[in-house]
């Protein structure tokens, strides 16, 4: 039955699975939480390393799981990059989670993440999506430092469930129209004219929009992000979004988008960009602000679909990585506070430069990068996306999108103003990010520097 190829093809997943099992065992014998964290990091690093190694080795088996799962070096690279991003998340979770469940759930979710970019069949993709999100419902309220966490989890669960149902409905209609569960059918019927397959594509896209929080399907995101704890929000804002986008890349394949779906991909992301950036202006909660920012970034990400199909994956992966790295950087260095809502409040950043110059500097870099300003990687990513949009000939939308991105600069600057320029010298005591989180920050800044200095090299790898 399973050939060695099949075994190797799922190597990253296997590492994760091993990690999950070891963690569960550890949990059962209730060994120290510290060990659990390191096991998780080890597992994730091994998985990421395996993925990257396989990508570098050019491992491309022919159909290890015919019709269900396939891998190419590019897919391995994407997996590897995203898995590597999970390391900082784990590192920064230390301060919030004292026991091992977090790691188990995170690893399970990552397992789902790994399935998405290589799924050939909607069956696998559906499992991947569910595996990605179900543990997160639990993660959202896992820290439970305030009652709103439950509210957040419930909202997330219900709308995510609705997204799953919508996705299934779309898949079902597609199945009805073509008789196949293969993801490629989506791309094939994109330009079809019959109503049912058209409805099917629209429903699938809507479901992806829902998961990625595109206006008007975004409403769960700010609430869920705010209710969750810092590492979980970081995870949701970066990896989950990235995974959903990878799924979308998988679904769209390499065809150039046209027809009604292209319209959706033009209009709704644009609305998201503007809406997200505007709504973020008045936020006073850091996580909520990032949520709106992530809505806007989801907009940019879907813009990337408009370009030539063959460069889509590298564009999306690069954007996701650039965006995630700096987002994680910001989250890693959010100063500690005993009260979660105070930690979250932007006032917590007031005068941060005086208290913790490193954190202020790195968060500042993160904010500027999120704003898409050079020379930070966010700019290259933005450039990449808009270059594709221009190349596809959607000049007006590209310009509007850029102007929308301009709106966002203001609220990112606001964070900088608070950190560096507020005269408030009364400093809350002992409020620095934990040392592990700082380590995560350092990892992220290293990655940021790499992305900033050698974007060409990195893109060539994706």
């Amino acid at each position, binding site marked *: 039955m399973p050939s060695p190829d099949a075994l190797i093809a799922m190597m990253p997943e296997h590492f994760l699975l091993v990690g999950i099992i070891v963690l569960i065992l550890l949990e059962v014998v209730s060994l120290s939480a510290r060990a659990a964290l390191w096991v998780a990091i080890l597992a994730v690093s091994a998985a990421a390393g395996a993925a990257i190694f396989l990508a570098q080795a050019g491992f491309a088996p022919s159909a290890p799981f015919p019709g269900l799962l396939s891998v190419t070096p590019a897919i391995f690279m994407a997996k590897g990059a995203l898995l590597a991003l999970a390391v900082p998340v784990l590192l920064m979770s230390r301060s919030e989670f004292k026991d091992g469940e977090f790691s188990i759930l995170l690893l399970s979710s990552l397992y789902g993440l790994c399935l998405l970019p290589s799924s050939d069949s909607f069956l696998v993709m559906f499992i991947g999506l569910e595996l990605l999100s179900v543990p997160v419902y639990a993660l959202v309220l896992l820290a439970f430092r305030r009652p709103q966490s439950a509210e957040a989890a419930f909202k997330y*669960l219900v709308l995510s469930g609705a997204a799953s149902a919508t996705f299934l409905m779309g898949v079902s209609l597609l199945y009805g129209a073509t008789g196949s569960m293969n993801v490629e059918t989506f791309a094939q019927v994109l330009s079809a004219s019959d109503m049912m397959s058209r409805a099917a594509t629209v429903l699938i896209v809507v479901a992806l929009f829902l998961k990625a929080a595109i206006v008007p399907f975004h409403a769960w995101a700010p609430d869920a992000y705010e209710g969750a704890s810092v590492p979980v929000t970081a995870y949701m804002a970066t990896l989950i979004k990235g995974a959903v986008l990878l799924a979308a890349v998988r679904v769209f394949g390499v065809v150039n988008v046209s027809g009604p779906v292209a319209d959706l991909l033009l209009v709704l992301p644009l609305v998201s960009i503007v809406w997200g950036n505007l709504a973020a202006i008045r936020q006073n909660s850091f996580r909520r602000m990032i949520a709106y920012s992530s809505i806007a970034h989801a907009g940019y990400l879907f813009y990337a679909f408009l370009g030539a199909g063959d460069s889509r994956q590298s564009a999306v992966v690069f954007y996701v990585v650039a965006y995630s790295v700096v987002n994680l950087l910001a989250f890693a260095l959010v100063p500690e506070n005993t009260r979660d809502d105070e930690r979250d409040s932007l006032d917590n950043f007031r005068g941060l430069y005086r208290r913790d110059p490193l954190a202020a500097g790195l968060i500042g870099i993160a904010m500027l990068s999120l704003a898409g300003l050079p020379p930070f990687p966010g700019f290259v990513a933005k450039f990449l996306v808009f270059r594709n949009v221009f190349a596809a000939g959607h000049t007006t939308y590209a310009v509007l999108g850029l102007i929308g991105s301009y709106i966002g600069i203001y609220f990112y600057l606001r964070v900088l103003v608070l950190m560096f320029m507020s005269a408030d010298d009364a400093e809350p005591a002992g409020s620095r990010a934990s040392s592990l989180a700082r380590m995560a920050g350092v990892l992220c800044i290293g990655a940021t520097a790499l992305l900033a200095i050698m974007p060409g090299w990195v893109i060539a790898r994706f």
Partner: protein
Amino acid sequence: MDRVQFLLGLSIALFSLGLLGLVIRRNALVMLMCMELMLNGVNLSLVTFSQRHADAGGAVLVFLVFIVATAEIALAIPIVLLLVKHTRSMDIGRYTDLKG
């Protein structure tokens, strides 16, 4: 009316009713049940098409949906309990602490 068409219509109606339930019902448990209704609607169409194409894929997906639905409920119920514990109400309309 064609049978497939009828079943498909029914499936869509169930799906839409479920979605409508999410919009208009305030009780958290009822909302969960409406989610189940949506999934049931999807299942119906999947089974129909699976039959129509004589392909096991649809049926497998239905099977997966069963499992996922169960898991979601299993996860959702404790969350609802937690919510109720805190606000002593099943009314989702009251859970609006997170906004803006």
